């Protein structure tokens, strides 16, 4: 497998079939050291199957995965020692306390008891769980359990962190706290592989995103470059002070597609500058006042929708 020296995750030709269904089809990519990489895709696209193969939980039918240069199929333990993993829908042991959960995880990675206890106390403080550290997790909220889970994945200071939907279904406070800690870990040098349904989360957190659709990698680049590549989703959003027939705008030859939300119109265009000027003269002729007028660039959500519905 071709791998740059800086690549912490290197994937080549990854394929997994379940009977007649190809869940992941010849996926190849790499993630350099220190990058925060987002992995997006609709439900059933192959995200979780991919992350399970990357983390050694599932064996691929074809293809190779190396973590920090270690082939995960040949040396699963050595490769897993480099990782912290939060699988989707996973849970902590509710019969144990928060501290016991994190300490147990640290000991699986070979940490000495004294070191793991010190690190656990520090992490639980960082995750605002110090005052509940000796309570059984059974009574914790979902957000608190997720924080214990993430603390368990960080306890051994992994070189690469795999997070499968880490903020899904959590309250805003827990989401923000978790995002801040992911960012902090990444700033400290940890490579992060993040799958998420939250496009805005990927847009704000990730250095690069890959979009998987029907098992194949459909796009991979920085969020900004992806948005530029999908510039047909640029639009002009406009609302007037009184009901208006916008048919004339649609027939201007500048509009590709129109969407209406309440009294606001969104006109998709290849040339937002020309369309905005055209709408401005239209409003002057009709003696209309604007309540909204804005030019919208392509969003990552637009890119996602275009790629996954295309």
């Amino acid at each position: 497998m071709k791998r740059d020296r800086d690549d912490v995750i290197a994937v080549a030709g990854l394929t997994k079939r379940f009977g007649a269904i190809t869940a992941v089809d010849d996926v190849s990519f790499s993630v350099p050291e220190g990058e925060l990489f987002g992995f997006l895709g609709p439900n059933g696209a192959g995200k979780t199957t991919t992350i399970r193969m990357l983390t050694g939980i599932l064996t691929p039918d074809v293809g190779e995965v190396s973590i920090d240069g270690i082939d995960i199929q040949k040396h699963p333990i050595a490769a897993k020692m480099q990782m912290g993993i939060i699988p989707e829908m996973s849970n902590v042991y509710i019969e144990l306390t928060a501290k016991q959960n994190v300490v147990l995880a640290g000991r699986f990675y070979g940490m000495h008891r004294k070191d793991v206890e010190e690190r656990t106390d520090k992490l639980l403080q960082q995750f605002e769980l110090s005052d509940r550290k000796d309570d059984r997790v059974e009574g914790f909220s979902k957000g608190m359990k997720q924080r214990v889970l993430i603390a368990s994945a960080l306890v051994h200071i992994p070189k690469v962190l795999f997070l499968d939907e880490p903020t899904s279904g959590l309250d805003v406070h827990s989401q923000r706290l978790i995002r801040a800690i992911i960012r902090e870990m990444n700033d400290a040098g940890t490579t992060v592989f993040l799958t998420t349904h939250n496009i805005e989360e990927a847009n704000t957190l990730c250095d690069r995103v890959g979009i998987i659709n029907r098992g194949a990698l459909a796009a991979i680049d920085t969020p900004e470059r992806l948005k530029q590549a999908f510039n047909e989703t640029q639009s002009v959003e406009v609302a007037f002070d009184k009901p208006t027939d916008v048919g004339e705008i649609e027939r201007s030859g500048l509009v590709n597609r129109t969407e209406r939300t309440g009294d606001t119109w969104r006109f998709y265009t290849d040339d937002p500058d020309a369309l905005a000027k055209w709408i401005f003269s239209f409003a002057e002729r009709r003696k209309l006042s604007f309540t909204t007028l804005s030019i919208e660039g392509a969003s990552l959500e637009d890119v996602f929708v275009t790629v996954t519905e295309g």
Partner: protein
Amino acid sequence: MPRDALLSYLRSIALIAEKDMRIYYTKPPVLMFGFLFPLFMFLAFSLGRSADLHTLFPGLAAMFVFFVASSVGPLITPWEKRAGTYERLLSFPVTVNTLILGDVVAGMLFGIIINIIILTAGIAAFGYSVSFIGVLIIALSLMLGAFCFSALGVLLASPASTNPSNVMLLSNLVRFPLIFISGIFVPIASLQGIARVAAYCSPIAYLVNSFELGLLGSAAIPLLLGWAVLIGFSVVFVLLARTLLKRNLMKGL
């Protein structure tokens, strides 16, 4: 295997066993089917009857070892799959082998701890005069038997069910017939014909035999042969559990 890898392997087994002991020893199905059930069977068999408990205690003690050691294994995997902890456990630096052996060790230790108390109480209550060699035979037999029966428990957890009660049902379907063919209620030496052949097919019979030798001083099957058969059953149970668990690893996740 290099020394570091061996240490890491053993550490993982010990950690999985420790985790199982903390979480599963006090679960109601373990207490019910592992401790209370054989206790009630023992009481039902002994109270108000003229049974010769001095002769039958080795068999009843083996039944306790069987029930206690095989009660933890069936619960762990389905419980973890249902609770959502199994995939995270798989994500730790562990292998299927360490998962199985960790669970087996947890069941084995449960069987040993509970049965040290039962054997000690039985020896005191029924007035056995046990030699030092007898103690060694009982101790080693207890370890081998507890490992073997715990491995059977883990094997019974290997089907893909995520419902602990389904697995406990299956485990009882397997465990109860074994009890009745193993020479527990009738000493192996007294069994004749097909009953004796059936007893030889059950791993429990070999523990009954070893306990009879340690406590009563005589046994129908040579001790070393009995131990070898227990080891053989253990290897078969672990290898079967490994095959089935690998096949069903992702089911229910």
